[in-house]
């Protein structure tokens, strides 16, 4: 397939994006070529601005525009509870529930032996620094329910429990609105384990 050099370069960059294959890259590239110059300038400016303005919150390592993120800066949040998540997008997911009032800590990944990713490559030390300030009494581990997420949860529990902290793991269970009969036995078993009194 032949493309003029600038188009080929754009395609190459687009294909680096997650979830964008050659087909989607081509569709986006042709959309950009057909659209007005102002629209494209706005897109380019938005891309540059986000890289210029957004940085990690030095406390929880979520993305933020200000010195501290909105959650860490909010005096109404419960500073005794820290919820540990893998990625910034997990903070967004938990915030959407509206049911959590504590603080967060973003690890920036999970322990993954097959990929050679250990605790040193994650923000574990920073979590310990936060805990060392003495206000935290409970750590809620909200990593994914994959093997890596569970391994990371075990690691954190083993490290944090001797410090006298309450370490909790979010429950796994059935999706709301789902049929019991379609649930796999791992999920159903965990849901039974985490049952509560009515």
């Amino acid at each position, binding site marked *: 397939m032949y493309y003029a050099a600038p188009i080929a370069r754009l395609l190459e960059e687009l294909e680096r994006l997650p979830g964008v294959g050659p087909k989607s890259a081509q569709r986006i590239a042709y959309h950009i070529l057909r659209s007005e110059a102002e629209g494209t300038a706005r897109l380019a400016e938005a891309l540059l601005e986000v890289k210029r303005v957004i940085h990690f919150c030095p406390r929880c390592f979520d993305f933020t525009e200000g010195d501290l993120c909105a959650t860490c800066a909010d005096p109404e949040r419960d500073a005794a509870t820290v919820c540990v998540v893998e990625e910034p997008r997990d903070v967004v997911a938990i915030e959407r529930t509206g049911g959590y009032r504590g603080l967060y800590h973003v690890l920036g990944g999970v322990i993954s032996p097959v990929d050679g990713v250990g605790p040193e490559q994650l923000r574990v030390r920073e979590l310990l620094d936060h805990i060392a300030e003495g206000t935290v009494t409970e750590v809620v581990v909200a990593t994914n329910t994959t093997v890596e997420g569970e391994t990371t949860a075990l690691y954190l529990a083993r490290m*944090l429990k001797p410090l006298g902290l309450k370490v909790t793991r979010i429950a796994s269970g059935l999706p709301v609105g789902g049929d019991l009969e379609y649930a796999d*036995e791992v999920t159903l078993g965990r849901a039974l384990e985490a049952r509560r009194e009515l």
Partner: protein
Amino acid sequence: MPAYPLRALVLRKTKLGEADIIVNLLAADGRIVRAVAKGMRKPTSRFAGRLEPGSVIDLMLNTGRTLEVVSDARSVELHAALRTDYERSCAASAVLDVLDKLAMEGQTEQRLFGLACATLDALEAPDTAAIRPIVTAFLVKAMAMHGYRPHLESCVSCACAASAVDRFSLEAGGVVCPQCGGAGHAAPRLSSAGRTALGALLASTMADVAASPLEARLSEECFALMRGFVAFHVPVRIKALEFYANGAGTPPRPDDGLR
């Protein structure tokens, strides 16, 4: 083409696109099969929970263009106890990664599946002192199946009596006497007790290794040797084995985190 059944152990899971995964499977006949499972990362997936590494499952597969496609999966053995303890979990990851890399090397080895299942079953045993010896026994048996059965009975090069040997040649795959064996890391030292222990691991069942684990010092000696042996003969890096061997299985002591 109709779907066909396959019993397999899940070795590895990698993300594909937005919601799909690719699983590397060790089939019951020792082949590696790679299959795609669609929509697995959505919470509503019907069988995502069954496709975690370490699970033995009965699958229904369809032949796809490049990869097989999973249409159904039923659990045979979840090995859930492997994920209740950090060290156990890291040991299981190491075993699965070795299987993935060894089986990838090509030739089908039917006994590999049985060894894999016996190893994971044994790793579920409650005694944590048995974890290292089990992983070591797995490495020596897996290497033997891969065509590298360690020669321990006499010097691998001049066949002189075993009483004289004091090193293990990684290249020759057996013990060597001082006259034949060079020094250095290609032929690490192996104590007489270590040699006996290695032979015992090779001859014991996994259940036996779990029931009466080697003493810690011997276990470490044999493990270090086998790890070097694997690294010498398997051309790809086995990251989960390195991770386990380098003690990432050991969390930092809480006090060195809190200055």
